[in-house]
């Protein structure tokens, strides 16, 4: 590990409060039953309870780069003095980004931005709105102290202290936090913060990371998941069974850190109006409904098949085997009918089909909504959720190189190393 710094809770909140004078600081805050990322003032941050800032947010932080609704273009038209039926139209592009610190992301959340970068920034066309915010944002991530029952980052080539996508990764240790500077952007942020050197705390950090990795249920055998999910495409019965309960509400997509879909709509008139981009959801029937009335995905089974296939087959096929799922488990936690993408992926791979009676109930959303410090994983009903002792003994074996071999995160491979 390079550049390690130590901060007490008071020093950490003091640092954030100072940053708030030059940056928009987004940090988790309790609002009603949910924890959400909100801009916080220097005063709020200076007096913040550190535990409140460390809670995992109910919704992903993707709105930091992709607001739920934003203006793409504004238009104004002026009538011709000679012929009022003729208009002169001018367009304005409000593309701007504020310097931002995104504090308290989890590694899965930070990795979500890496997933979004590919379609938004690395294709033939670049999205300037997303790009500007991405450029202007420094991501300060908290290594997970322990896993929730819904967590499955180890299924998709990640782990609770993954640095990918983060500019700074901090880990809770006795008496405070150890900050690991990952990028130059992160370095600039800690410049002059006055944090002490933490080279002597390497062992504490490694122990914390190992404990977090051990708290995760082992990942199932997912070799060839891409091909296996793809080969399920024509198995209509499978997808119908898996989606019997689905309400097509789209909660899974709105909370997901990697769901990229949006719609574009106009508001106002040609004289004075704007073109908006808003989050959209592939789980709703209108998403693909064509003007003619034809719909390539008319049933909820078609739509769930697309969603799961996109994350585990279409996206990895397009982008070097990298999954478009970071295993944060928000879709599992917040699904009103307890659908679980893990069950679908596992069933697709293992060749079995689950009826909805077989699907174990997910933890209640209320578990994560109460304003208490993060609890360790509650008992997972599925038998594989019980952490095996050998994992705790060799936590490093659980960290595959995410880009090179995202599918190498299987239990068997981890054990062999």
């Amino acid at each position: 590990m390079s550049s390690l710094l130590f901060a007490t809770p008071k020093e950490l909140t003091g640092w954030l409060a100072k940053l708030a004078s030059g940056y928009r600081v987004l940090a988790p805050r309790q609002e009603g039953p949910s924890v959400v990322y909100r801009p916080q003032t220097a005063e709020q941050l200076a007096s913040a309870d550190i535990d409140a800032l460390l809670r995992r947010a109910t919704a992903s932080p993707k709105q930091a780069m992709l607001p739920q609704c934003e203006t793409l273009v504004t238009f104004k038209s002026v009538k011709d003095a000679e012929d009022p039926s003729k208009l002169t139209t001018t367009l304005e592009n409000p593309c701007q980004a504020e310097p931002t610190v995104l504090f308290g992301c989890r590694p899965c959340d930070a990795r979500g931005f890496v997933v979004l970068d590919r379609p938004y920034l690395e294709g033939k066309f670049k999205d300037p709105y997303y790009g500007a915010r991405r450029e202007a944002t420094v991501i300060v991530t908290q290594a997970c102290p322990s896993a929730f029952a819904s967590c499955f980052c180890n299924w998709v080539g990640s782990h609770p202290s993954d640095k990918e996508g983060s500019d700074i990764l901090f880990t809770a240790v006795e008496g405070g936090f150890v900050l690991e500077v990952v990028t130059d952007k992160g370095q600039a942020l800690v410049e002059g913060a006055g944090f002490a050197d933490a080279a002597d705390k390497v062992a504490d950090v490694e122990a914390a990371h190992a404990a977090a990795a051990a708290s995760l249920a082992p990942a199932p055998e997912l070799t060839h998941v891409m091909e296996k999910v793809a080969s399920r495409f024509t198995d209509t019965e499978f997808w119908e069974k898996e989606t019997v309960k689905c309400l097509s509400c789209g909660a899974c997509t709105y909370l997901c850190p990697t769901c990229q879909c949006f719609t574009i709509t106009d508001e106002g008139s040609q004289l004075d109006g704007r073109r908006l981009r808003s989050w959209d959801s592939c789980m709703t029937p209108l998403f693909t409904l064509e003007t003619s009335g034809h719909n390539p995905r008319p049933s909820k089974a078609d739509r769930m098949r697309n969603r799961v296939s996109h994350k585990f087959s279409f996206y990895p096929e397009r982008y070097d085997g990298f999954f478009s799922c970071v295993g944060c488990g928000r879709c599992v936690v917040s699904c009103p009918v307890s659908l679980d993408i893990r069950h679908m992926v596992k069933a697709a791979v293992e060749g079995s089909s689950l009826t909805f009676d077989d699907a174990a109930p997910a933890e209640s959303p209320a578990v994560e909504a109460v304003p208490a410090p993060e609890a360790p994983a509650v008992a997972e009903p599925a038998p594989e959720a019980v952490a095996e002792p050998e994992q705790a003994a060799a936590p490093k074996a659980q960290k595959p190189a995410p880009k090179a071999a995202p599918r190498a995160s299987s239990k068997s491979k981890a054990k062999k190393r």
Partner: protein
Amino acid sequence: MSEHNCGCSKNPYLPEVATVLEVITESPTIKSFRVRFDNEEAWNSFTYQPGQVGQLSVFGVGESTFVINTPPSCKDYIQFSVMRAGEVTSAIHKLQPGDKVGVRAPLGNYFPYEQWKGKNIVFVGGGIGMAPIRTIMLHVMEHAPEYGKLSLLYGARSPEDMAYKADLPGWLESDVLHTTLTIDREAPNWPHRVGMIPNVLKELAPSPDNTIAVLCGPPIMIKFTLAAFRELGFKDENIITTLERRMKCGIGICGRCNLGGKYVCLDGPVFSQAQLNELPPEM
């Protein structure tokens, strides 16, 4: 707000403001719109390939995707043919010459005409599906000596549903194009064929030897015409079509026009049947 490097100058969401030069009523439900960018510099540097699409918008109503159906040699305007069906297309149908629209183009891929040199080409257009056929057919006709025999089979429900009436006499009399027109049911004073496109195609029975089939039209027509071409011995890699999907961004990001891992707006709309065979069957 600070300075940033977002590449706003190449903002793919920012349309060019264009003026409607001419509106042509093609059929009771189809109108063609000839438009040109207001910004001369943008217009002069604008190029596209046959088969590429554009997002045409009425400000305050919204955008929709249409193929540019002029050949790229046309430097005075680009033409979109629009069937009135929903909110945006209804607003487009109300446009008059002089009105302002937004255009984001060119988007998507194009017909691989470079690979067709020296080959015969059979164009088949059904209804509004004639629009993409028009751009590639006119382009190929301009370079006719480089290709083999060219033929067109164009079908519509009735004589009045047939678009491009101004083009038809020229196509029927052309030395480089053999044109067959057909309508679904008998109509008074109709001198051409009567019958569904797949049936007429089987009667015409073009040889598959050294021949490319290019077909566009509604899904049901594509389905049966594809079967007819296969019956005639055409190989799937020589059958080319264009796909329709609901689109928003047009640049492969908004996520709705995917067919498996391919985005119709970015990787399409032009696909060979052989390529489609490799994709999930979700039409």
